[in-house]
């Protein structure tokens, strides 16, 4: 018997006796109870796009991320230039993309492009990582990234400052909507890595006191383009 057969055998034997069903709050429904949509229990999300941008900003800033709605690409570029000047950036990690290409054009920094692989030490010594994303989630103030949309797994977590470029039409109401979006986009061919990023990295492990910049980025900047 294979291990799989052993374990599945144990499970099937155990499940011969049924366990009491939990009571579902809102009473009888037609569909199986566990498929009910959670939206009505979760925190509310704004109805209009305007409300959602506000909610995203509020939540992202509460998580100590920097958020800026930019009128155009030039405004985004100027802001990144400022960050680079203030941060004394010399080297920036990034991937190729419509938005990232436009922003790095005038930065004049050494670039580590991750698209076709990279040397770990090169990426590790970058001052910032510039990526696009899959979605922005209003309900939580999160950025959803994936390997294809953010230049792989490490680019958005290894350099100490992560800068995200997103478009308005990438803003979704909640986590459920973000997950649905990627399910529709990738169908069965998912990337091997997707992540919800909610603020700069942090820890509460010392006396449960919040410290930013544990292992991941200490700073997160989200720039929203029209």
């Amino acid at each position, binding site marked *: 018997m294979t291990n799989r057969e052993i374990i599945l055998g144990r499970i099937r034997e155990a499940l011969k006796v*049924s366990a009491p069903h939990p009571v579902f709050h809102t009473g009888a429904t037609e569909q199986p109870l566990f498929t009910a949509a959670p939206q009505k*229990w979760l925190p509310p999300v704004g109805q209009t796009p305007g409300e959602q941008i506000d909610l995203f900003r509020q939540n992202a800033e509460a998580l100590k991320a920097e958020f800026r709605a930019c009128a155009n690409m030039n405004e985004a570029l100027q802001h990144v230039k400022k960050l680079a000047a203030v941060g004394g950036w010399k080297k920036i990690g990034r991937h190729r993309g419509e938005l990232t290409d436009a922003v790095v054009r005038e930065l004049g920094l050494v670039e580590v492009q*991750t698209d076709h692989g990279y040397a770990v030490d090169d990426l590790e010594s970058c001052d910032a990582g510039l990526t696009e994303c899959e979605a922005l989630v209003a309900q939580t103030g999160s950025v959803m990234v994936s390997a294809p949309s953010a230049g*792989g*797994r490490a680019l958005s977590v290894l350099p100490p400052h992560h800068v995200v470029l997103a478009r308005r039409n990438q803003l979704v109401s*909640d986590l459920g909507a973000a997950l649905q979006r990627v399910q529709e986009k990738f169908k069965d061919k998912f990337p091997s890595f*997707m992540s919800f990023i*909610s603020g700069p990295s942090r820890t509460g492990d010392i006396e449960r006191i919040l*410290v930013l910049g544990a292992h991941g980025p200490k700073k997160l900047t989200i720039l929203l383009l029209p």
Partner: protein
Amino acid sequence: MNVYAKEFNESARRYTADLHHRDLIHKALSGYYAKRDEFKNRFQSWSGARDLAAEIKWEAINHLDRYLDEFVSKLEARGTKVFWAPDAQAARDYIVGVARQHQVRAVIKSKSMTAEEIHLNDALEKAGFEIAESDLGEYIVQLREEPPYHLVFPAMHLTRQQISDLFHDKLGSEPTNNPEDLTMVARRVMRRKYCKAEMGISGANFAIAETGMISITENEGNARLTTSLPKIHVALVGIEKVLPRLSDLALFLPMLATAGAGQSITCYNTLYGGPRQPGEPDGPEEFHVVLLDNRRTELLADAEQRDALHCIRCGACLNVCPIFKNVGGHSYGTTYQGPIGSVITPHLRGLQDWKHLSQASSLCGACTEACPVKINLHHHLLHNRRNAVRAHPTLLEKLIQFGFVRMMCHPALYQFAASVGRLAQPLQRWLGGTILDPVRAWAKTRSFPPLAKKSFRELWRERKAS
């Protein structure tokens, strides 16, 4: 009394008398309570969310064979190697085998209680591999050579001073009182290790059947680094971690964060569905998922307590348990602490050896109230007590219970006992707290209330007569 129960009592005695510990834990948790309540209140209905979460886990666990098969076939379709581990030894052997096969030297690990459970670090060290804990709290307790204090906050019992001393001692860092500086020490140490390690080991918070992915929740980013840079990623996943659908995370991620850490959402919630896919710039060449049984199927077979497998390891029950807060996480002497630990450890490690954890409870029910998936925790402690007694009644206790029943079935006996008690009161006061005191367990630390001069029965009779 077995050795585990003895050790529990000794440890509990030490910690309950330690007022510094009591104070530190109280401080650490007050911030959590406030934040937890703030984010719970943002839910349109926390109670509705709990009901749905309970329902989803019920579905997953009660159809576990189906969902596990779906999970595995989806994983394998994208090149993940899946190993079904019937027990801890099998899991350890497999993981050590993978490390050997790939001539790994250094292993980096992100937080996994399951890995604690199977003593994986020990096995890897004995096999000659260097293994580093990347999670700050786990790294701290690893340096101190002690087990994690709490499921979610492994170093909760330490002050910054103690951590500073530890780092100074073991790493030669400058002493500092600043939590940020201490964190930066660990950050610098870990960064080298991520970049050099050949193998990264993680746990998983959830196993998504529908899409064949594991989901890892963390704040620090160490799990993301552990699973991005090394060329091998091994994830150790308890079979009970299954959720049916990707969309279920929309409910579970916020609930886990709120109940477990008093956050609206944890900093990184990452989905891993395979090794590096064609066209991806980085990621492991090989992704292994080790599915662990290790007696979870025994808990599954106990239909009355099966819902204990719904646990999402949030730690909310620990955070509200007055026993946990007073005896501390280390007193439990086993991987899973607090109420959930007391419920499941008898199933995972033996009822007679671990029933004392179920006995060391006032059954206040705060745990059940706090559980985001509505596990009937405190009632399961009662069930464990009953099961322990049925399997192994002790003669002395049986006699005492027999005596109790006889007394309660014969009011005359009951009243006689009560009047003896009343008469003996002055004697008890005189003997109070000494070896001869029959109520010494109480009277050593608390005064004994004077029994009423007249029992209710006597007052009632007097009233009737007049």
